[in-house]
């Protein structure tokens, strides 16, 4: 048992092993103060089968951990001739099943060595990138204390192509540090004629406690069952996950024999699992997979996080082309100007939440004219324009599970445009030039209308140009007004199909178009006043409104 902190817990666990008839040899890190060592020794003084090995200073990643293991193992094999199996544990390991169950389990696998041992080519679990190179580079600098030197020397060796030779007959294998080996295998390793050579070689290997016994067990021809009996999970930075009281149920379901690492103050876990009255039973094989999911999710949360969420501890600024928002949403430009009650129709046809102009100059027009929307979003234009990105990402995040659509036109605050263009979740649909329809119908003095039309056309043209840049990630469709008016049925059907594929079978009528008779003359008037209306397209002088609206109201033929 390798110990360095929380010695009171280590003592309790050692007592637990000893009570089940297992001799224990403890290696205590020599950097532990004398007072603590004396305390541990006193706590275990009544147990003749618990002994202490010679101590070395242990530093993670170095050979000192192997050395400590060798010292303790040699001692236990010598002083307890009856010992047939050696289980390497740490002071923060906790047996989860009665020791008798472990003994029975081992008896069912005679001469088997339980040691995770995987060739470097196949290993998928090492964290930090060094696999094969652990064995072919030199690591004279401490990773903990001289991180820069450590990294720099690795880079230097790679660049110079310097490699160590792996001793002949040794195939590097990696695996969990926590193993259970037979006396036969251990003696073969410890008394190996080339032991000195092995030790010399592994002294300069990186993290040898994960490779020394794992490689040598293969070399001495042990009967390897490549898995660890100790449940031990590592997070994405290679640190072991810690178990707390609230993991009790999860740990139970794993049926593992030993778990690490346990938080020293997890009183419930220690009380439960060190309870001597627990009867041993015939329980199923260990299945550590059950706990994997929890930790896999934790790693995913730390590495990837929840897409579209911006909060105090997740603020993606360096994402390349990824989704900027939590879910797909629709941005409609011009449709509401062209159709009567477009909102109502869209909401019904796509089962989405359809907002008005969220970025209107006066206020955010939420669906149903609410003053406050989900999450407490205010309709105040000031608050929105103070941080339009937060406003939109909040809106999409707050309404996860419900598709959002909103209107966006050249009269709206345009600061959000850049964001929309870069977001793959944005589905932007534009009938260009449609902004002129409400102007035409407004009845304002023509000079005013002409100036306003020119301004809006400029804004919309800029928006469309932005969307046509190669960096744009949004899905964009642009029709000019003339083309759209000529055949509005097909585009509208496509929109419904895209936004709500499940609605395919329904045969909804399409919205009615506003009466555009005389609109062509309006465009011509704009031209006559010196403006060049380009976004509207070649608007037909003759328009059969009745035919268009009949086509729109005709139900879709079932396919």
């Amino acid at each position, binding site marked *: 048992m390798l110990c360095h902190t929380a010695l009171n817990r280590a003592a309790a666990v050692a007592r637990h092993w000893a009570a089940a008839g297992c001799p224990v040899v403890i290696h205590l890190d020599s950097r532990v103060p004398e007072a603590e060592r004396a305390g541990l020794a006193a706590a275990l003084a009544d147990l003749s089968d618990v002994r202490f090995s010679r101590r070395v200073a242990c530093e993670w990643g170095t050979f000192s951990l192997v050395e400590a293991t060798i010292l303790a193992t040699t001692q236990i094999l010598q002083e307890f001739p009856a010992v047939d199996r050696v289980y390497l544990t740490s002071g923060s390991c906790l047996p989860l099943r009665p020791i008798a169950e472990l003994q029975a389990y081992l008896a069912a696998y005679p001469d088997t060595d339980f040691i995770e041992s995987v060739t470097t080519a196949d290993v998928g679990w090492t964290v930090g990138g060094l696999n094969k190179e652990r064995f072919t580079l030199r690591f004279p600098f401490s990773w903990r204390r001289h991180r820069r030197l450590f990294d720099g020397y690795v880079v230097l060796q790679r660049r110079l192509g310097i490699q160590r030779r792996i001793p002949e007959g040794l195939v590097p294998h990696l695996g969990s540090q926590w193993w259970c080996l037979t006396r036969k295998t251990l003696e073969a390793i410890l008394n190996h004629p080339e032991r000195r050579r092995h030790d010399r070689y592994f002294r300069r290997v990186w993290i040898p406690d994960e490779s020394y016994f794992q490689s040598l067990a293969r070399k001495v021809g042990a009967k390897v069952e490549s898995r660890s009996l100790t449940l031990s999970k590592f997070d994405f930075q290679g640190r072991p996950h810690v178990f707390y009281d*609230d993991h009790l149920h999860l740990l139970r379901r794993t049926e593992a024999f030993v778990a690490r690492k346990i938080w020293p103050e997890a009183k419930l876990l220690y009380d439960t699992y060190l309870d001597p009255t627990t009867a041993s039973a015939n329980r199923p094989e260990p299945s550590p997979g059950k706990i994997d999911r929890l930790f896999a999710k934790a790693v995913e949360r*730390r590495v990837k996080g929840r897409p579209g969420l911006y909060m105090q501890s997740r603020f*993606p600024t360096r994402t390349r082309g990824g989704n900027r928002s939590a879910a797909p949403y629709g941005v409609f430009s011009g449709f509401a100007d062209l159709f009567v009650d477009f909102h109502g129709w869209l909401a019904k046809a796509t089962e989405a939440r359809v907002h008005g102009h969220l970025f209107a100059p006066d206020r955010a027009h939420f669906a149903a004219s609410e003053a406050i929307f989900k999450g*407490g979003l205010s309709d105040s234009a*000031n*608050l929105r324009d103070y941080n339009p990105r937060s406003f939109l990402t909040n809106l999409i995040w*707050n309404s996860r599970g419900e598709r959002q659509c909103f209107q966006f036109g050249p009269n709206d605050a345009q600061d959000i445009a850049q964001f929309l263009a870069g977001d793959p979740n944005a589905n932007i649909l534009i009938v260009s030039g449609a902004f002129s329809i409400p102007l035409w119908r407004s009845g304002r003095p023509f000079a005013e209308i002409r100036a306003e039309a020119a301004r809006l056309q400029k804004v919309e043209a800029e928006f469309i140009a932005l969307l046509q840049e190669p960096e744009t990630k949004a899905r964009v469709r642009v029709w000019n007004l003339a083309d759209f008016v000529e055949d509005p049925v097909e585009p509208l059907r496509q929109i419904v199909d895209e936004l709500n594929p499940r609605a395919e079978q329904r045969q909804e009528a399409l919205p009615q178009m506003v009466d555009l008779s005389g609109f062509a003359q309006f465009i011509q008037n704009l031209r006559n006043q010196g403006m060049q209306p380009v976004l509207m397209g070649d608007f037909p002088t003759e328009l059969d409104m009745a035919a268009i609206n009949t086509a729109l109201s005709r139900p879709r033929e079932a396919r």
Partner: protein
Amino acid sequence: MGLISAYRLRLRRQRLLWRAFRRRRELSSVTNRMASWPAQPILLFSTLRNERIRLPYFLEYYRKLGIDHFVLVDNGSDDGSREYLAAEPDVSLWSTGASYKRSRFGMDWLMHLLRRHGREKWCLTVDVDEFLVFPFCETRPLRALTDWLDSSGTRTFSAMLLDMYPKGAMHEQPYREGQNPFEIAQYFDSGNYSIRRNPGLRNLWIQGGPRARLYFTEDPKEAPAMNKIPLVKWDPSYAYVSSTHMMLPRGLNLVYEEAGGEKPSGCLLHAKFLDTFAAKAEEELRRGQHYAESQEYRAYREGITRERDLWCNWSEKYINWRQLETLGLMSKGNWA
């Protein structure tokens, strides 16, 4: 980072430390019970004034959470707060009659105490109306979190301020001493926070919640900051720049992940909006001892006199930390 800007930040930090050092004389010790500290205590630091009615629950809450010792500064209370605290066994109390405003709203005093007594210890700096919630706080004590942060080599933990408010006017549900304030102030805004990155100090600047929604629609820039870094493994070279919103050296402000993942974080439930608030706002306005010429309080007073209800249809009712994590206000990160 340019050498010059690095040097400027260093000067700024040293100026803050020097200020704190000079203001140490304003503090006089009332009780000092630090001898009774356990080996590696988790400490709570706070400045207060006339908070007698809140103190019993405050102390109880944080004791349960796992605070070992309270290091408090009483800024001239006359409502018995001082006498009450002096009698508590796990409180070390200082008192001062000096100006709160000139002490950078109490931060100079606290920074001096942090520097003197917080070295290499986990220190939680909060106001008396701020209640920390962190992942697994129902089942794991604060020490589980600090141990985990230690093992991951992290020295700061962020907890955003979350304004809690009641349904209906504040004065309708009076707060009783010892009561959990969140029995009254049960509601919060879940998703209206504006976040931007402060390029200078690299912290996130978070504004929003009911205060921004109601009182700062005219001038959103002036809305109070909600980002906080209250839990820090203190080092004498550290400085809080503005309240606990941001720190120097600025690397300590990187409590967020920029490449897409989530770091662990918590929330500070803010029990400001109780019936005690109106009186407090009046008093603070008279004293003129708060930020920005008490502009914040002026805005509140207007709001209060008009009896504005902070509650709205979309207010969330508080359940527990898991709810806050689901809503995306805090995160477990890779702590599982």
